[in-house]
Every structure is written in structure tokens, then in C-alpha cells.
């Protein structure tokens, strides 16, 4: 489809949104993994 003369702005807006959401989700998943690893370390008695 033809986005006209302002295609860059439209794609930029959508691109930024996708990027921010990806960062948000990626960070949430990374944080969850870190906490789960820490919990697992306690469960396996790594600290004992």
C-alpha cells in the first residue's frame, strides 16, 4: 500500500512502539528468569 509522503513517520511510530513493547516484555522475562534462578539456587541448597 502507499503510505504517501509521510511513510517514514508512520513506520517510525509503529517501529518505536514495537521496540518499546519488545524491551518491556524482554525485560520482564529476563527479570523473571533471574528471580527463578535465585529461587532455584535456594531450593537446590546451593547456599548450604
Amino acid at each position: 500500500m502507499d503510505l504517501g509522503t509521510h511513510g517514514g513517520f508512520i513506520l517510525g511510530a509503529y517501529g518505536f512502539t514495537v521496540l518499546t513493547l519488545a524491551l518491556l516484555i524482554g525485560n520482564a522475562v529476563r527479570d523473571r528468569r533471574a528471580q527463578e534462578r535465585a529461587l532455584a539456587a535456594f531450593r537446590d541448597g546451593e547456599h548450604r
Partner: protein
Amino acid sequence: MWTRLANPGHFLRWSVALTPWLAGAAALTGALGLYLAWFVAPPDYQQGETVRIMFIHVPAAWLGVFFYGSMVLSAIGTLVWRHPLADVAQRAAAPIGAAFTLICLVTGALWGKPMWGTYWVWDARLTSMLVLFLIYCGIIALWRTVEEPNRAARTVAILTLVGAVNLPIIKFSVNWWSTLHQPASILRMGGPTIDPTMLYPLIVMIVAGTLTGIALHLYAMRTEILRRRVRTLTIREAERLDPGASVMVAYPAGPSA
């Protein structure tokens, strides 16, 4: 029922069950919304194709405000009922709300350039969102500064409520200020009269955004609960390794010799 649902253990169970459904529903409505927004909705007769930015700009603005509202409710839960889940909900909401507010600001700027010929105009709505973003930044900064979680929750709750009292005042004053300073020729973003062919995609996108936000929020809340568990376990571990301090009891002795 609500007290049962709000019990952290119960919360973990029902939120684990619910999150995939929410995420799936969000993906489906999101896909539908994008299809409608890109292939069904016509280009605006004034704004042309750039109107497609509205379909993310408006939902993002709504979510920025929505998450502040949920933080206010959680803040009341923290201060009045001292409910641990309220602390967790509040803490998990702040970065998500800030991210959506940022999306709203950036897409607004990218929409503004082709429409107004400049990335930023001090339009009342954009300015209010900017202030909201600044308040979010303050809240996140305060979360990071106060180390002890319960104290941080109470401190942030007070700030959130003060911000909530202030936001309507800010909105009002910014409106007043912009009518004072601006020429009236600015295009209004998504005015009250909007064509149904644009309205339905917009509504679908708002629903999709809200589902995404809630799914993210539930997920982040569970992470936060895990983080607190890790913290508790770490403290127990430290107590265990320090036998002198681990089981401290007081002996009420009689009159001393």
C-alpha cells in the same frame, strides 16, 4: 471472594492460569486491530495516511492514564489495608505505565511533524502527558532509592496519591495555559466527531492494548512476588549463618544480683 483472590498464594495460582489466555486474547485483538487500522480504515481526508498513527497513539495515552489509576488504587490498598499485594501491584505498574506514556509521547511527536510541521507543540494534551511521564519517572526513581520494600511501598504510595491530587490540577492549569498562549488554528487530535470506520479499529486497538497491559502487569507482579521471596530467603540464610543472632530471645530475669 476478593480477599481470597488477593491472597498472594491464590493470586499466584489464578494469575498463572489467566496470563496465557490474556496474552493470547491480546495477540488476537491486536492482530485484528492492526488489520482494521491498516487495511480497512480509510485515510483521513485531511491528515491522509498519517492518521494511522492515531491507532497506537490514543491507546497508549489511555494506558498511561489507566496504569496511573491502578497505581492510585494500589496506593490506597497499601496505606489503608497494608496489603502486600497492593505494594506488589503498585511497583509492577510503574514501569509499564511509564513505557506506554513514552510511546504516547513519541508517536504524538511523529504524528505532529507531518501535521504541524514540528515534532513538538506545547499542546495541552501532549504537555499533560509529558508531566505524567515526569511523575512516573519520579516514582520509579523513588522505588529504586528506598531499599526496604515495605517502606518503599508506603513512601511511593504517598507520592502517588499526592500526584493523583495534583494531576487534575495540572491538567486544568495546562489547558488554561495553552488556551492563553496558542493560536486556535491547531488541528485537534481525534476530535469528538470521528467516523465509525475509524472508531471501530480504534476501539479494538484500545481493547488489545489494555489486554496486553494487564497481561504484562500480572506477569510483572508475579516476578515481584518471587523477588520478595528471594529477599526473605536471603535474609534467613544470613540469619542462619550467624548463629549468635539467629535465635535471639529475651530472658526476663528477676531482680539482678
